[in-house]
């Protein structure tokens, strides 16, 4: 199913919820809508579903204009943050309801199959209220999947679940989406979730669609400072710099030998992802010296907050590093790992991606 939005905008009174945007979703794939709260994700989904009418522009399904068609006239399945199930029906009846509506045969087998895939088959005869939050959301997901709608919209479906449960369900959903042929739209505030789901990502901020493309591509080549900021967790370190003869000069720091594109303006912003900073130097590195403000040990990684002359930096170091507050620390960086932005926003050069077969 091909969903296309042409110059779709949404205003409510004097407030602009969505600036006019164009978006053609890749059919049969998952598209992640990534953005902070209030970025416009839910507004966009409601227009896609037909729950709200766009204030401007057209919504096309397989080339057919459905801008004025209500949600009932469209074939859409939705899953919300809050688990929505029929409280007086058993789990089995809940999952069966869309199948019955469509007049399908062999309903029992389908219900069992879906329940097994979402690991809720032991609870088929229970009422939703007798289940935990995670199990109730699985029922809602099973019902949405049972509908086999060509378009499935999920609005932060895992946000009310426990961290660990979220991790498991996200893994399962990723596999389910890949196996199915529905076009899936999945809203989240978390960059990590977008990366784990893969597929395609549409980055949104303040009611604007900033970039759409394959998830890894958007992550590795964010079109602008705003995209980079929205798609980095830990936050991307942004350093003010200017173009000079030997490369770049960082405000508060020295000159670095960074190759600039020929038409680079003078005023630049350098983007450094937290994971690109290392405590060990390698040949050709540039160095950033500072003082440890805080070292957060998160198990597999240590997040080091560094106070330095070029500003506050966050580094993501692999493994456990016990660093006391105030400890002097120098971090090293391959200049090729720097994102170079025009200070006005646009990306001039993305960090290089080098892969080697050597042992890490």
């Amino acid at each position: 199913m091909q969903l296309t939005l042409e110059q779709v905008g949404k205003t409510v009174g004097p407030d602009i919820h969505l600036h006019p945007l164009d978006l053609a979703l890749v059919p049969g794939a998952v598209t992640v809508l990534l953005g902070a709260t209030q970025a416009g994700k839910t507004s966009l989904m409601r227009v896609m579903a037909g729950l709200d009418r766009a204030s401007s522009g057209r919504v096309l399904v397989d080339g057919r204009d459905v801008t004025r068609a209500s949600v009932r006239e469209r074939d859409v399945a939705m899953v919300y943050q809050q688990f929505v199930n029929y409280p007086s029906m058993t789990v089995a009846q809940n999952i069966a309801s869309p199948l019955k509506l469509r007049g399908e045969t062999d309903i029992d087998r389908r219900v069992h199959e879906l329940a097994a895939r979402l690991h809720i088959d032991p609870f088929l005869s229970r009422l939703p209220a007798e289940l935990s939050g995670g199990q109730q959301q699985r029922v809602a997901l099973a019902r949405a999947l049972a509908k086999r709608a060509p378009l499935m919209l999920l609005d932060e479906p895992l946000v009310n679940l426990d961290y660990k449960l979220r991790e498991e369900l996200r893994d399962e959903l990723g596999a389910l989406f890949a196996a199915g042929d529905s076009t899936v739209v999945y809203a989240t505030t978390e960059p990590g979730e977008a990366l784990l789901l893969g597929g395609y990502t549409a980055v949104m901020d303040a009611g604007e669609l900033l970039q759409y493309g394959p998830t890894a591509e958007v992550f590795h080549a964010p079109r602008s400072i705003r995209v980079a900021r929205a798609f980095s967790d830990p936050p991307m370190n942004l350093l003010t710099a200017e173009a000079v003869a030997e490369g770049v000069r960082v405000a508060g720091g020295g000159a670095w030998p960074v190759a600039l594109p020929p038409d680079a303006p003078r005023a630049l912003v350098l983007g450094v992802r937290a994971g690109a900073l290392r405590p060990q130097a390698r040949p050709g590195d540039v160095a950033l010296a500072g003082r440890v403000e805080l070292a957060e040990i998160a198990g597999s990684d240590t997040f080091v907050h560094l106070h330095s002359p070029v500003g506050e930096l966050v580094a993501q170091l692999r493994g456990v590093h016990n660093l006391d507050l105030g400890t002097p620390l120098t971090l090293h960086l391959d200049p090729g790992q720097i994102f170079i932005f025009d200070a006005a926003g646009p990306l001039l050069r993305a960090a290089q991606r080098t892969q080697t077969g050597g042992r890490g």
Partner: protein
Amino acid sequence: MAQIELDLAHAYRANPQRDEDYALLPLKMSFRDGGAYALLGPSGCGKTTMLNIMSGLLTPSQGTVRFDGADVTRQTPQQRNIAQVFQFPVIYDTMTVADNLAFPLKNRRVPAAEIRERVGRIAEMLEMSHQLDLRAAGLSADQKQKISLGRGLVRSDVSAVLFDEPLTVIDPHLKWQLRRKLKQIHHELKLTLIYVTHDQVEALTFADEVVVMSRGRAVQVGTAEALFERPEHTFVGHFIGSPGMNFLPAHGVDGGVRVLDRVLPVAGRALPATELRLGIRPDYLDLGRPDEVGTLPARVTRVQDIGTSTMLTCEAGGHALKVRLPAERLAPSEGDTVYLRLIDTHTCFYQDERLIP
């Protein structure tokens, strides 16, 4: 501030018989004066019950709560002098930010000069100094929750500050800032802080010591490093880390372990000749050369570019294993066979779900 000691159990029903009847199984725990602790576990593990017992919102069905040695089991939160921060902002919309922050102090009839000093200091720490005269009503949910945090931290005379999932409504970017602020405030003010969450990143980064809970039990109490490197129970191995530890059935043999159809040498230690579980984290599971001695062949079923690393999902003998490779390493493709180095200094062995030391 106070040292908090628990020696208690709690059941929401009368005459508990079996383990399942208890929300909290009998336990003894001690929280150091000025320490930062997190209670971490899935829904229903008993962490909120434990927090409510410490605050005085709930009286345990048996046993005692002591603050600095004094029995406070039947005291209210006010009598215990506890400050609390909840999941959603609890503030007065019609008041200014400054008045909201001052409220807990005014209630305790703190002198005006001291209130000004304290409110100013907390506002500065939370970077809200420029917003002190604004009405709370006009602020975003994030900002309101910052006020809630400030209200919890504003009093210097509290026995402890208890946080119940305080960052749930906060966007990822602000979470980074607030976590850092909380940590700095803890360093400066040396309050006893207890923080309940299901989010391991929040727990591990916030606390000096994390209490990992499951089904009414404290399964392990330890630093982030201990919980990650040497999980004492398979539950901790699974629950900490994202994704959690990989486990495979193993059997101790002379000089090593048998895993599936392979015998893998384990140097420097003898393992019991019985059914074991081998545990190794995705971060430590490395790829060896084809047919390298001591490796287990596995088929790659999924390759994910997750930004700073590549996540492999592999399958061996019907078991799924996750491998996290640095992004700069050349990753195999789906369908490839890889040779997993299961035995490493980080490998843990478990008997009856308990770590073999």
